[in-house]
């Protein structure tokens, strides 16, 4: 059962995993698209852990790992609600055009 927090976000852990798996190819697309489209992207803020130190993973580099994968979860293609994950970071975008292009790219 989704937690209340997840319900509020309209997201369950299972749907996230499924969404992430489906977004694997899209993630690569978003990396390329982002270079072109980034001025138009409206980052709506990252979602840090509830506690900045406890629950994080010290001893490992935070943020985006150089050369590591970037994963994209299109939460809602219609509204353009997109989450982007890299390393131990995440950010949330709202870009209807990008979401539509990703959706089209996977048929």
């Amino acid at each position, binding site marked *: 059962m989704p937690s209340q927090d997840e319900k509020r976000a309209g997201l369950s852990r299972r749907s996230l995993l499924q969404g992430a798996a489906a977004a694997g190819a899209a993630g690569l697309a978003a990396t390329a698209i982002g270079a072109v489209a980034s001025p138009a992207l409206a980052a709506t803020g990252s979602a840090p852990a509830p506690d900045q*130190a406890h629950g994080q993973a010290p001893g490992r580099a935070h943020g985006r790992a150089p050369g590591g994968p970037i994963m994209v979860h299109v939460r809602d293609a219609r509204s353009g609600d997109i989450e982007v*994950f890299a390393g131990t970071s995440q950010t949330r975008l709202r870009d209807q055009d990008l979401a539509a292009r990703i959706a089209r790219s996977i048929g």
Partner: protein
Amino acid sequence: MSSHREAPEISKDPVADSTDVYAFVSPDQPGTVTLIANYIPLQSPAGGPNFYEFGDDVLYEIHVDNNGDGRADVSFQFRFTTRVRNPETFLYNTGPIQSLDSPNWNRRQTYDVTMVSGFSARAIGTGLACPPCNIGPLSTPDYGALAAQAVHHLGGGITVFAGQRAEGFYVDLGAIFDLGDLRPFEQLHATFGLPALKAVPGVNATNNVNVHSIAIQVPVSALRRSGHPTIGVWTTASRQRVRLWDADNGENVDSGPFRQVSRLGNPLVNEVLIPLGHKDQWNSLPPSDDKRFLQYVTQPGLAALHPVLYPGVFPNLAALVKSSKPRADLQAILLTGIPSGIIADFTNFTGPVLADMLRLNTSIPPTPSARQSIFGLLGGDAAGFPNGRRVTDDVVAIELRALAGVTYPLIDKNFKPDAAAGQLTDGLTPASVHAPYLGQFPYLGVPYSGYNEPS
């Protein structure tokens, strides 16, 4: 139990599934507290060729709250790294493993320990070796000595161990999950119209299996605040938000910030108090949010079941349940600690914040082993559960008895517990655990070997 496979989602992720937490003033090092968090439940010792190991992709933590707000003030974080010496063999080991640097050991783990205090994080151990699993007399011929090499002294009086141990928690899972049956009393069970049962001794379902333990012994001064001897302890496991199966490389790729997927403080809380539909949510939250689960502690479903499953045995409990009076005794034991003035010369109260934490009053010295009671505080032994938890404490019997009303007189002296309430047990004791507990760190016994178990 006490938190093995306790929630639907985490039961599918054993590497991140916390099973038990222990916190006690070290009997042989009284200036220190020992904290143990167990993971990976119900390991069959012969489970090769890929024997059990911690998850490189899991952030394991042991937390300590020392100001009563249900949030971590000190955390110990453990991150594991697995290395394979020779990927061209299927073997875990290619000969006897007699030292932690043995070239015969093919798949090994090391770990880093970080101590987080507030917003400050400090690496206190790096590249620490885990022991291998206990395989058998040819592969791990002197396992006790081998595992002892994996006890690391980090300086500052901190000692740490991470690796396989014998399961020390004893419980008759097979009977209890068969509609609340307690074998020693099953002649009294309602049996739902089925033939009557006959009382028999309990069976330790967790005997002869192993777990993976993270144990750390810390000077008490590093954990508690001046003037506040009681600490709250719990463990968590967290995973990164995204996992992608990279089919090209045959591996998982993880990304994003860590999010908590498993939590454990007091034994059996998520297991038997939190309803099925909320267990994984409970696992994802900090203790400071436990107010939202208060009703499941103060109106526990299991207490209401006792009179139904054992008709006529618990009339006073039945009346208490029918009255719908909140179980403030359970609230104190599990969510706030017991205030002073309730039990003579004892308190482990941390304040009004409702938080499921294992509360340990560190000013209470360890009870000598000859005078310990496995029933802890219920047995007049203030150094045992629910004042922290020792590896031998019979937390099943203690909680069964508390739920049955034994502790309700703490808040209502007019309540008389049923005679049976104080006798409840699943029929097991520490002697039901075949592997002897250790008298020194890490206290849990040498794991069972795959050669000898199952026998």
